[in-house]
């Protein structure tokens, strides 16, 4: 279980606002994070990943303290073992599809399986600039899954996929999440796209 109780000051167009999140995420749950733009959804999942530091509070994951402001503990992202799908994909322009996955893991069987799940087998030697938007987004998801994370954070991960591909991928991913035992948080603007997959919801703002 991941227990979060944090605060972070955010700069907003109408001055300063404070993002307060207090919630527990049960192991294996899939949570949809919703809320208007600019309320701190991305900031929240980046704080979980250790990419942004909260102003105060604590984050505990399965009896490990990831962050505790009063005890001055702040585990770096490398030690949190988190999968992260960035909204801008953050793909490495110098690496091919396969090299992205090889950079994350040495498990060749797992890499082949991920390529198959994402429908990118035939594009394994392509670099990101030779992939479509949807293919790039799938690669970003596969790369995050490559490390078999216990916590997977996804920021608008299906926004560039067509309806058919999205539906098929979501079904496969749901099975995969259960298999690796991942707790998943998905930021999504589209309330319908995650119907039937999410088990919990967090509204921010």
């Amino acid at each position, binding site marked *: 279980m991941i227990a979060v109780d944090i605060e972070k000051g955010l700069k907003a167009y109408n001055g300063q606002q404070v993002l307060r999140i207090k919630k527990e995420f049960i192991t294996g749950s899939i949570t949809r994070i919703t809320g208007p733009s600019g309320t701190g959804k991305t900031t929240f999942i980046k704080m979980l990943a250790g990419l942004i530091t909260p102003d105060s509070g604590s984050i505990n994951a399965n009896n490990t303290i990831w962050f505790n402001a009063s005890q001055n503990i702040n585990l770096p992202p*490398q030690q949190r073992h988190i999968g992260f799908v960035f909204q801008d994909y953050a793909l490495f322009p110098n690496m091919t599809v396969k090299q992205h996955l090889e*950079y994350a893991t040495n498990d060749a069987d797992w890499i082949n399986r991920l390529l198959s799940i994402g429908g990118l087998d035939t594009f394994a030697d392509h670099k990101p600039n030779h992939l479509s938007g949807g293919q790039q987004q799938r690669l970003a998801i596969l790369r995050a899954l490559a*490390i078999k994370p216990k916590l997977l954070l996804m920021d608008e991960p299906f926004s560039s996929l067509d309806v058919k591909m999205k539906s098929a991928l979501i079904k496969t991913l749901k099975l995969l999440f259960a298999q690796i035992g991942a707790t998943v948080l998905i930021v999504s603007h589209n309330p319908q796209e995650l119907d039937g997959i999410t088990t919990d919801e967090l509204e921010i703002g």
Partner: protein
Amino acid sequence: MDFSPIWLTLKLAAITTLVLLLIGLPLAWWLSRKRSLVSIIIEALITMPLVLPPSVLGFYLLLAFNPQQGLGHWLQQNFDVQFVFSFKGLVLASVIYSMPFMISPVKSAFEQLPASLAQASYTLGKTQWQTLRYVLLPNIKPSLLTAAVLTFAHTLGEFGVVLMIGGNIPGVTRVASIAVYDSVEQRDYAAANHYSFILFAITFAMVLGVFIYNKYPAKSPLA
């Protein structure tokens, strides 16, 4: 014609470029990430050779490394190292003098990379060093090439600073630019012309090469 000034110049430019690649890349990366008073002061100091007369820089280096006093005396006593009127001194002066040509383009390139690239690498468990080596540096290759060529070409053209700290010792500190000046002083215009033409040809070819390379952005992995 004595070719030793040309070889000495090429050797100096190659060593300077290599040294600046080794110390300039981590420094540029650090400067691209930190915005503190210390980093701003360091960046201003690195940029000074762009605006300072080379003779002023050479004069201060001459004072600092004078073997009769201060740092220069200490280095000679403890390590038997003398920078004044030696090739080592030319390398040191060139590294300082050409530093902005290496740091500035590389720092700008690092700053233009999306922050999420490094963040994605960190979430995959990679250290800052692995991220720099496998993600950041390969994605700024065109800027690295530009910086290395500019550093090399700029070092070929040094005059004031190398004359101040190195003097004009044939085979040791007499680089091509000084050989041109010396030849003119001795009214040997043919030799001055030869040295000048070779310097012009080398630097023009290098700068032209960079321009042609950058004209084809498809070669860049960021294209």
